[in-house]
């Protein structure tokens, strides 16, 4: 219960921001905040994997892309030509097809977004499972490199496969009706409701992950981070827990991918790029690694600045730079930084003054 109450300030802030943008007629900001919220969903999942369980992944843009691309492909590729095949009839029987007309007035038959979403998320979970069994035996740099390899593979696949639109990606992804009257879509009219959908998802994610971390499983994950040998000696099934948290974080990434793709109405190969994975890792690091609130704050802030184009053409470079600076000066994240100590450090004069004072 206390856990839920501590989320109230966040809920208040979300509402205040929305009201402020309405009053000041700047609701266009909500678009980037919504997108940042979706990216943050991936980031808090990655934070649980990296910060708490201590397993680095440089392939999470891959899971985001698996979610986004599968959902996009299933909900855009026209199945009318296969209308009479047994498979399509069966799918229709399960009521998971959606019929309509495309922009040229031809009849269109695609998979319903709900079904597509479930398939996409399950696919990401399954791939995480198959990938995780061998690679999670690796530690540290080796795990980073193996997951990086996975990210590169996914990037090249979406670039090369016609079904995924090659370099163009997939566009005209339909909106996703969660419940009648509530749609994930990029329509200007649906800006406010989509802002709340995204934040609703983030809040659910935060509740789930905070519950997890403050539990028997959370302690087991943190013990694995500290010493796999000692964790094993305490009866923690280390390989199983690592695999489970890896799958969980992949599912968070995939859900973010699905929702953001339906919100944007499309997805392109850059979402699967290695630089995206590096960005996510950088944000978790800036947030303080084992720090869900830090990851969320930095996830929203830095993605928002990036989406607003504040970093210009140096977007990726900025995140690379952030990673270097954090590793050098604040390996525990900037929220846990001793600001006063740092200021003292920067202004050598203060230090000298203190040293002189010490001699007296």
């Amino acid at each position: 219960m206390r856990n839920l109450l501590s989320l109230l300030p966040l809920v208040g802030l979300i509402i205040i921001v929305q009201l402020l943008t309405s009053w000041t007629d700047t609701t266009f900001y909500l678009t980037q905040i919504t997108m940042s919220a979706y990216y943050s969903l991936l980031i808090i999942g990655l934070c649980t994997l990296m910060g708490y369980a201590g397993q680095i992944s440089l392939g999470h843009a891959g899971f985001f892309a698996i979610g986004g691309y599968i959902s996009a492909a299933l909900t855009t590729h026209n199945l009318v030509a296969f209308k009479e095949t047994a498979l399509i009839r069966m799918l229709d029987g399960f009521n998971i097809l959606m019929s309509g007309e495309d922009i040229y007035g031809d009849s269109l038959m695609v998979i319903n977004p709900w079904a597509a979403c479930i398939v996409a998320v399950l696919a990401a979970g399954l791939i995480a499972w198959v990938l995780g069994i061998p690679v999670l035996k690796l530690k540290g740099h080796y795990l980073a490199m193996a997951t990086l390899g996975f990210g590169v593979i996914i990037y090249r696949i979406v670039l090369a496969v016609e079904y995924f639109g090659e370099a163009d990606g997939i566009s005209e992804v339909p909106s996703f009706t969660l419940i009648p009257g509530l749609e994930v879509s990029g329509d200007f009219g649906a800006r406010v409701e989509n802002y709340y959908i995204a934040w609703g998802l983030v809040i659910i994610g935060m509740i789930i992950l905070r519950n997890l971390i403050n539990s028997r499983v959370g302690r087991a994950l943190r013990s694995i981070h500290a010493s796999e040998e000692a964790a094993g000696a305490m009866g923690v099934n280390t390989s199983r827990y690592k695999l489970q948290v890896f799958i969980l974080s992949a599912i968070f990434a995939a859900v973010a991918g699905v929702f953001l793709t339906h919100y944007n109405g499309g997805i392109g190969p850059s979402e699967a790029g290695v630089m995206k994975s590096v960005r996510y890792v950088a944000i978790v690091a800036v947030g303080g690694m084992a720090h869900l609130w830090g990851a969320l704050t930095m996830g929203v802030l830095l993605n928002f600045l990036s989406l607003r184009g504040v970093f210009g053409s140096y977007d990726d470079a900025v995140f690379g730079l952030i990673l270097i600076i954090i590793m050098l000066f604040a390996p525990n994240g900037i929220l846990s930084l001793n600001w006063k100590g740092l200021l003292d450090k920067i202004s050598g004069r203060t230090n000298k003054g203190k040293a002189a004072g010490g001699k007296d």
Partner: protein
Amino acid sequence: MALLEISGLHKKFGGLHAVNNVSFAVEKGSIKAVIGPNGAGKTTLFNLITGTLGATSGDVTFLDKPLLGKKPHQIAALGMARTFQNVKLFHDMTVLENVMVGRHIRSSAGFLASMLHMPWTLREESRIRQKSMQMLELLGIEEFADTEATSLAFGQQRAVELARALALEPTILLLDEPAAGLNIYETAEVGRLISRIRDLGITVVLVEHDMSLVMDISDDIVVLSFGQKIAEDVPEAIQKNEEVIKVYLGE
């Protein structure tokens, strides 16, 4: 039938026989010490028993179940707890949280139940907390419950590690050099503690360098030298054993 039986246990590292055809048994409720000079294979022996290392050949039987081939977490779940020579506490976790990990095998909340904070997991959580606090009290370190474990002094860290192992409610407790790095007063304290642990009904096996500690508290001593067992007897007899004296003091 002994609680723990080791027979013909063998471990080769390349051409080195780190543990060479070692056999002995540990009776329930006893304190068994394994001594030997540096490099005699004592820690390797522990790692083989607890599943951290795979044996080349031989058998280890605990509660009539074969242990070889089992993973460390499976062996722990059978009721075998251990401590490490260079204290392995979980950093970034408090003393209490460290000990709470020791309750892992005595609790059951999984991923889904934990994520949803099912009401029964909250009850389980408070039982874990309560039991762990009892362990801290047993070792007299309850005042450090909320301190980050790795920030404590070395002797206190050893106590935390012991509390964590005891939280598992083990049938058998393996202590790898529990007195290493402690002064004579702390060592004597550890000795009293180990006797108390035995009085709780927990069988103890310890690897140790400190002769005074071993001679005081053990029921039985196994002496290893270059991976081989050279003697096994009660402390008084070990003290008079010529081969043991030769190994320890030279000819």
